[in-house]
């Protein structure tokens, strides 16, 4: 929109106007980076305590398999989610077919399921003793499961499908928002020029969807990389799992911290590479509402194929697991024999997730605004650092966070002892504050990314106009930036909230005495191999998670800023 000639004088004016107030945003950004760096620094400190003896062993026996499994898992999940996410998003955006209006909001729902729950459900259904193989044996007259070959559910391909079917909505939401806003005119031009549907996808839709695909996929891949419950259960030896076995079985916490550090570096490098690859791709990012693409009504068998293609992931990722859990809940009488503690855990989960979400969004928006004010390398470096929490496995983050929290508490105790002669105990490390801080650090990346994307859509000239009309920076933030990026922030808030709801590993390690969240409650059944006893709690997570996911669809429909061009440009 802004031509270079126009931009230049405006930006100069812009910079001149803002300079006096640049200190506060800089300090804010530095503080935020410090918050995220604290656990990472403590992680590196642990790694530094060294255990060089373990590396030859790791390099010979552990890492090759772990790297191969991790690479295959990531590649498989990437392909599965990209194909499913982009494919379904394209179908519901470009075509009209039976059930399309319902499928639009059904498609994101698998996001409400934690991956490990879906893994348990599918192994229960697909294993040798499950209903499908039992029927198979009855049908073909086999006596035992050893007499025929059946694709094993507990395997790498199984893990790819099960994780993929839960995570594809990240890509779907981003791709759909992109298709909806960016492409109407281009698509219609291509159509009138006689482009076949395939050409349309290849030459117009896919290139346009690339930034969305990148953002959605990076969320998917980081989630996959951090997954521990599902991959352990399915027998996939990922890097994250080898961090655990190195720590717990090989008795080397420094070794584990070293693997985690290397993994962190790899993730950062990949993120940088991804950004570098897209440095020239900036799509039109105006605040104007686009005319939605006119959907073509499909006829004949095509409409049923489209319907089936969109229905399949919904069935696999949402309906089937839901039926399984509901069935277990009823069969086990979990509703009547309701654990009296369960409602308390549910409220606690929502409360913790809610507070963490508000804080993360507040800080994320603050960071995006600060970067808009000061720009420059330092600012964007701080913003990158603030997003690193997402790249570290939950337990590792929790381990790293313990030391800084305790250090803070000890400092506080020293002050209160000196001043008043009393000790406060572990104020942060021993309370729910530890969990909230962990969630904020973990999911801040989603908030900063979306807030930045939301702000990127507001032309800087608008700030300048407001400024010349005498509005103060805080006033501009409240009256222009916040209202205009509301949709982006709302979308991000819902994603963060759902992620907090599902968070397990950090919660397990950091939660205070007598506190359970729904995931930790389910986990204790799962570790005893009796996951079904937690079916009602699993349903509660899904029920609480569905509401935000449904809202997310609505946000995606009206203003798809959330996550779409999250890192467009800088």
């Amino acid at each position, binding site marked *: 929109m802004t031509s270079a000639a126009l931009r230049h004088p405006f930006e100069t004016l812009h910079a001149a106007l803002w300079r006096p107030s640049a200190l506060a945003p800089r300090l804010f950004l530095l503080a935020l980076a410090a918050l995220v760096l604290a656990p990472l620094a403590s992680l590196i400190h642990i790694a530094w305590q060294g255990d060089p003896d373990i590396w030859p062993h790791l390099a010979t*026996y552990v890492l090759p398999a772990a790297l191969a499994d991790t690479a295959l898992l990531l590649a498989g999940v990437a392909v599965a989610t990209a194909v499913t996410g982009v494919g379904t998003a394209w179908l519901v955006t470009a075509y009209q077919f039976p059930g399309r209006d319902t499928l639009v909001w059904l498609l994101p729902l698998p996001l409400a399921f934690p991956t490990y729950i879906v893994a348990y459900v599918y*192994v229960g259904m697909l*294993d*040798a*003793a499950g209903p499908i*193989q039992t029927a198979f044996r009855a049908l073909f007259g086999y006596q*035992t*499961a*050893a*007499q025929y070959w059946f694709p*094993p559910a*507990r*395997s790498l391909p199984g893990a790819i499908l099960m994780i993929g079917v839960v995570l594809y909505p990240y890509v779907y939401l981003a791709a759909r928002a992109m298709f909806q806003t960016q492409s109407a005119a281009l698509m219609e031009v291509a159509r009138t020029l006689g482009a076949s549907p395939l050409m349309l996808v290849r030459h117009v839709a896919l290139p346009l969807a690339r930034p969305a695909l990148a953002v959605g996929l990076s969320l998917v891949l980081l989630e996959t990389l951090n997954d521990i419950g599902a991959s352990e*259960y399915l*027998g996939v030896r990922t890097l994250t799992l080898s961090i655990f076995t190195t720590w*717990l*079985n*090989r*008795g080397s*916490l420094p070794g584990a911290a070293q693997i985690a550090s290397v993994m962190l570096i790899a993730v950062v490098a990949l993120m940088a590479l991804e950004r570098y690859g897209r440095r020239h791709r900036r799509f039109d990012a105006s605040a104007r509402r686009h005319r939605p693409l006119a959907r073509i009504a499909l006829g004949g068998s095509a409409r049923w194929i489209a319907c089936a293609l969109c229905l399949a992931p919904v069935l696999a990722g949402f309906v089937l697991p839901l039926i399984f859990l509901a069935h277990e809940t009823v069969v*086990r009488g979990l509703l009547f024999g309701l654990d009296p503690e369960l409602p308390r855990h549910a409220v*606690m989960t929502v*409360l*913790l997730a809610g*507070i963490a979400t*508000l*804080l993360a969004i507040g800080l994320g928006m603050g960071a995006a605004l600060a970067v808009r004010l000061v720009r420059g390398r330092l600012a964007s470096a701080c913003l990158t650092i603030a997003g690193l929490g997402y790249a570290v496995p939950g*337990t590792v983050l*929790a*381990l790293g966070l*313990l*030391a800084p929290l*305790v250090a803070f508490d*000890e400092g506080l105790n020293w002050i209160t002892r000196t001043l008043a002669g009393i000790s*406060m*105990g*572990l104020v942060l*490390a*021993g*309370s*729910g*504050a530890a*969990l*909230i801080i962990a969630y904020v650090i973990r999911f801040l990346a989603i908030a900063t990314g979306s807030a930045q994307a939301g702000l990127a859509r507001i032309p800087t000239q608008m700030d300048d106009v407001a400024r010349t009309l005498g509005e103060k920076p805080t006033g501009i933030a*409240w009256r222009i930036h*916040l209202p205009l990026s509301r949709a982006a922030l709302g979308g991000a808030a819902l994603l963060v909230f759902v992620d907090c709801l599902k968070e397990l590993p950090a919660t*397990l*390690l950091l*939660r*205070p*005495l*007598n*506190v359970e969240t729904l995931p930790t409650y389910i*986990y*204790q*059944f799962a*570790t*005893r*191999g*009796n996951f079904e006893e937690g079916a009602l709690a699993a349903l509660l997570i899904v029920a609480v998670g569905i509401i935000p996911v449904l809202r997310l669809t609505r946000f995606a429909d009206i203003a798809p800023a959330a996550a779409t061009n999250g890192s467009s440009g800088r």
Partner: protein
Amino acid sequence: MNAMTMRAALCVAAATLIGSATGPVLAQSGEVNVYTYREQKLIQPLFDEFSKATGIKVNVVSASSGLDKRIATEGANSPADVLLTVDVARLQDAVKAGIAQPIQSAVLDKAVPAQYRHPDGLWYGISMRARVVFASKDRVTQNALTYEELADPKWKGKICIRPGQHAYNNALIAAYIAKYGEAKAEEWLRGVKANLAQKPSGGDRDQARDVAAGKCDLGVANTYYWALMTKNPEQKAWTEATKVILPTFAGGGTHVNLSGVVLAKHAPNKANAVKLMEWLVGEKAQHIYADINYEYPVLAEVPVNPIVAGYGKLTPDAMPVAKISDYSKAASTLVDKTGFDN
């Protein structure tokens, strides 16, 4: 100003939350704080009974890993009084991490046999489980088995087991190393690996399930799972298709592991903590271990549950349990080296 109200609400909610529900638990006379690797659901009945008997409130946090590290980091301000764990290696880890303190307790020393406690009273075993085999009733005729035999080629393609890096298998392999040395253990582990029907995965119950479905004939698992499955509507069928064999080491006994307790070094409620530990090896608690958790009680006077007794008489291997933990790292290394989990 929607966002303003939200902010205000946030402050109020945060203050309430941090102040009350999850606030730091300080040392108080009528409480004891337990960090546990055992699932809370499993041990809550014990704590409820303890509270009823003594009026002492038990505060709990459970996790599957990292609690010893958490206690160590929390340092002198740690609210932890007691650490409850499920594996002898974990008990020894606590000692190594310097988070345990010794106890002088005639009650504990009398109840817990010497081979199931630390020589200096740094930890005490409170219940036992054995790592055994769930065998197909239809396809397995023998009723006795040695661990050595699991590597016999006659079981080729017939054994199911969870990953070798899991703590339960780690302890079994460590025990094998402790008995025969690493070279013999490696040969054995390769033999077992060659007999597997599928890649190691799932949990202990999944092994029973796969035996019942005919995927394999022998599933390696812990004793209490079989008894627990008899109480579960669908899993009951898996127990009906299987029998429990208590394997032994040739010329020795069955591999058992412990769940145990540690008194935290900086325990703020030390007296209550010792009271809880003593209560856990008392008759009432030991009955709960036997009849609700289906474990073997350490207290000789308390009988095992009839279902568990139905497995046959358990003869624990004579080697001191603590010795197993000396080899847990070697066992883990061996699993990597043999590619057992691949």
